[in-house]
């Protein structure tokens, strides 16, 4: 948190005159004002990791409150009702917009796209830098919003008006506009980044890199960027109108003056549901890269994966109102959105089947990145299957806004944002930093994460089945929810969370020590095919000593009649 903040504060100093800068110009140019896609990727990665620590700390504070209502939380203090809502609101916002998005799309998109398609940098390097700087600014605005009088915004990450639009209701006259401003800035940052990703992949591919030879993760990031760009426009417009309602006193969402609060819900979820696939698809792409490498197996039906991803993206624009079945929309609408929501389950299920089929016939090595990739598939399966209960209008009447929903989307977002990121970090660490990570610590971290995750969210499914509602700071106020059995579930979830957090220190230790003292990595430690493994580890500025030419697809593993079981994309024969 502190590092990017000071970095940002120094921009005007250094811009005005270089004489009294704290760092020498080389450091500043290299680490803070760089246009190199790899460095910008690292900036996103580290900012996202710092934000993840804040988001995790928030989760710790409010879960402790839920398990032990009214008790003083070690490291936080007593959690008041307004604190509680501030914590859940910003936990959600941070984890989606400042962790999943920057790490999965921006960090790995920036790092991987030029390396994997075989070019020296993004086509718009300065736009890329601007994208990160806006993102950093948005993170700083969000962090400031926690410290203003009356605290940060506490109207849930969905920010439904009229609660979010009038200070008389949400009681955070400064926190709410700052939160909204931060979210809107963040969207602009990713809009710029997305333009860059799509343009780069369209124009800068190495010779021979035909569309059907592009590694799946690059395709997925491109599709996700297009989805994001196509869906975020209405929400940015809606957010500006909400900001007007908050600070200028307009009445766009105010029913007492002819506005309509449901308008916001439509604008929000028109973005909000594609957003799920915006972060899911890159994670799916990362998993595709990893399971093919460590199963030594060609990706089963490359074109099917690609087309299901595109189909998912298109259908995701027609499912948004399943978040609003009981929100006061015309009840007949629910029938349409039930159908579209159930249809979207098909391409996603197909994608999972393709991955399973990829494992069959492989020669599976259980390295740390592979464990993460497999953990992603297993956990995401639970998240996907439970989504059907919520997409079906009849059962959603009961499950809407209960802990079943919370458990469901954490079983999708946790695999996406954390398991997917850990898979990517452990897999590309040798390429990013030129050193190997410790496998033993990596496996301890894996098991110390995957088991507690189930320990957190499986009990919450049960709590949701029993009717626990979301965003309640203490269930002791409701006779039916205060039963000891349900409280035991909440305590179990909280203890699991504490275990999970404890094991993240193993990762941090492993990450930092490997960064400083890990064994040097060779060019291609995993015997992978894609182009980034033909560059030096870490790749220098400009990436490739000799620009590669591509001769085949990215997943030619286990080809019969060859000495090696892999066949790099750029190898002439």
């Amino acid at each position, binding site marked *: 948190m502190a590092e990017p903040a000071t970095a940002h504060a120094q921009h005007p100093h250094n811009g005005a005159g270089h004489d009294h800068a704290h760092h020498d110009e080389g450091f500043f140019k290299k680490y803070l004002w760089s246009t190199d896609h790899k460095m910008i990727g690292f900036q996103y990665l580290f900012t996202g990791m710092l934000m993840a620590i804040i988001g995790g700390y928030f989760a710790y504070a409010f879960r402790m409150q839920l398990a032990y*209502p009214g008790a003083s939380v070690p490291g936080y203090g007593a959690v008041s*009702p*307004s604190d509680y809502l501030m914590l859940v609101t910003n936990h959600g916002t941070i984890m989606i917009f400042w962790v999943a998005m920057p790490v999965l799309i921006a960090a790995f998109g920036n790092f991987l796209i030029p390396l994997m398609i075989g070019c020296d940098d993004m086509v718009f390097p300065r736009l890329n830098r601007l994208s990160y700087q806006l993102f950093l600014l948005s993170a700083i605005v969000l962090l400031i919003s926690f410290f203003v009088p009356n605290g940060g915004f506490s109207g849930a990450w969905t920010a*439904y008006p*009229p*609660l979010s639009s009038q200070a008389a*209701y949400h*009681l955070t006259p400064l926190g709410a506009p700052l939160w909204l401003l931060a979210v809107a800035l963040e969207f602009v940052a990713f809009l710029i980044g997305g333009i860059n990703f799509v343009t780069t992949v369209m124009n800068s591919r190495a010779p021979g890199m035909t569309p059907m030879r592009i590694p799946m993760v690059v395709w997925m990031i491109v599709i996700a960027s297009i989805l994001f760009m196509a869906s975020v426009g209405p929400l940015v417009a809606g957010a500006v109108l909400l900001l007007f309602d908050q600070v200028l006193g307009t009445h766009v969402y105010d*029913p*007492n003056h002819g506005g309509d*609060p449901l308008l916001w819900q439509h604008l929000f979820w028109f973005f909000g549901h594609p957003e799920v696939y915006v972060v899911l698809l890159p994670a799916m792409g990362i998993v595709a890269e990893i399971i093919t490498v460590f*199963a030594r197996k*060609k990706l*089963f*039906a490359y074109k*099917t994966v690609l087309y299901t991803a595109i189909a998912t993206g298109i259908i995701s624009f027609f499912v948004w109102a399943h978040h609003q079945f*009981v929100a*006061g929309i015309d*009840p*007949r609408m629910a*029938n349409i959105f*039930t*159908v579209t929501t*159930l*249809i979207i389950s*098909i391409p996603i*299920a*197909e994608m*999972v*089947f393709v991955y399973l*089929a990829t*494992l*069959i*016939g*492989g*020669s*599976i090595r259980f390295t740390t990145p592979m464990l993460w990739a497999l953990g992603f598939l297993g956990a995401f*399966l639970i998240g996907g*299957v439970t989504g*059907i*209960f919520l997409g*079906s*209008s*009849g*059962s959603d*009447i*009961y499950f809407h806004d209960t802990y079943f929903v919370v458990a469901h989307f954490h079983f999708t977002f946790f695999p996406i944002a954390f398991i997917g990121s850990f898979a990517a970090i452990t897999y590309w660490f040798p390429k990013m930093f030129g050193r190997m990570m410790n496998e033993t610590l990596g496996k301890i971290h894996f098991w110390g994460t995957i088991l507690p995750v189930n320990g957190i969210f499986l009990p919450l499914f*049960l709590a949701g089945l*029993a*009717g626990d*509602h979301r*965003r309640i*700071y203490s269930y002791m*106020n*409701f006779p*039916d929810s205060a039963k000891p059995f349900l409280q035991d579930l909440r305590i179990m979830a909280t203890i699991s969370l504490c275990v999970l957090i404890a094991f993240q220190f193993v990762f941090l230790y492993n990450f930092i020590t490997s960064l400083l003292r890990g064994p040097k990595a060779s060019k291609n430690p995993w015997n992978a095919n894609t182009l980034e493994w033909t560059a030096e580890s870490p790749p220098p500025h400009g990436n490739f000593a000799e620009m590669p030419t591509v001769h085949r697809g990215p997943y030619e*593993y*286990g080809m*019969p009649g060859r000495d090696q*079981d892999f066949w790099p994309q750029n190898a002439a024969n």
Partner: protein
Amino acid sequence: MFESLVPRASSFAGDIDDQIWLIAILAGFWFCVATGVFFWSLFRYRHRPGERSQYITGEKPEEKRWITIPHNLILICDVFIVVGAIRVWYHVKQQLPPPERTIRVISQQWAWTFVDPGVDGQFDTDDDIKTIDEMHMKSGTLYHYKLYSRDVLHSFSIPAFRVKHDAIPGRIITGWFKSDRPGAYDIQCNEICGIGHGIMGARLYVDTPQDFDAWIKKNTAAPPALAVTPATPAPAQPGAAAPAQPAAQPGAAAPVAAPTGSVPAAAAPAAPATPQPSTQPNAR
């Protein structure tokens, strides 16, 4: 197991639970299949020295079958789920059976007001019974609820009834339920509505017809002194009328009165004329 977690206290609770079970069986089957294949392949195809992976492109028709057959089977399962979902949805939300009695449910930061039409069955008459954070209904009677909000979004949720609907300021939303199971159940606000959201609960009493009649009788004999007090207005014309109500404005001072562990009524800015949250006849 589901029944033991939360009772099925409304006429359609069983239908919704059946839909949940239908999905649990169909989706559970696919979950078991996928998980089984997953762990089996991890074991069967683990790396063994000297063995190489097979080269399967997945592009040939006989290989693609492994995707297209499950694809079609899932499509069929989806059809069953969609049909079940729409049937339940139609029954619970889309159609509106004729009411035998109607109740007004008025939400505001952070209390529920329930208006029973009283003996004559007409609203806005002298015998309306207004209760706060406590709802009484007669078992075996088909109720319509008219859902109002005075300020922000709330959500009227009775887990035991499988009833849930958002209350929107400026709109009156009508729904129905019927219960044959006398008892006491939780009502909770299910849409974040400000810092008092966590205490915005109420208790629903499904009374037997005898108990209900006794409750009506007890609350109908209004003392004459109350006849002149300006009762909290039931928003006959929400929308335009809503902002005029003083109780709808939470103000800066009111929300502070929501300390941890307080009883729900403590933060209720409703009904300024009634200090006690008990039942009170709406003498107007």
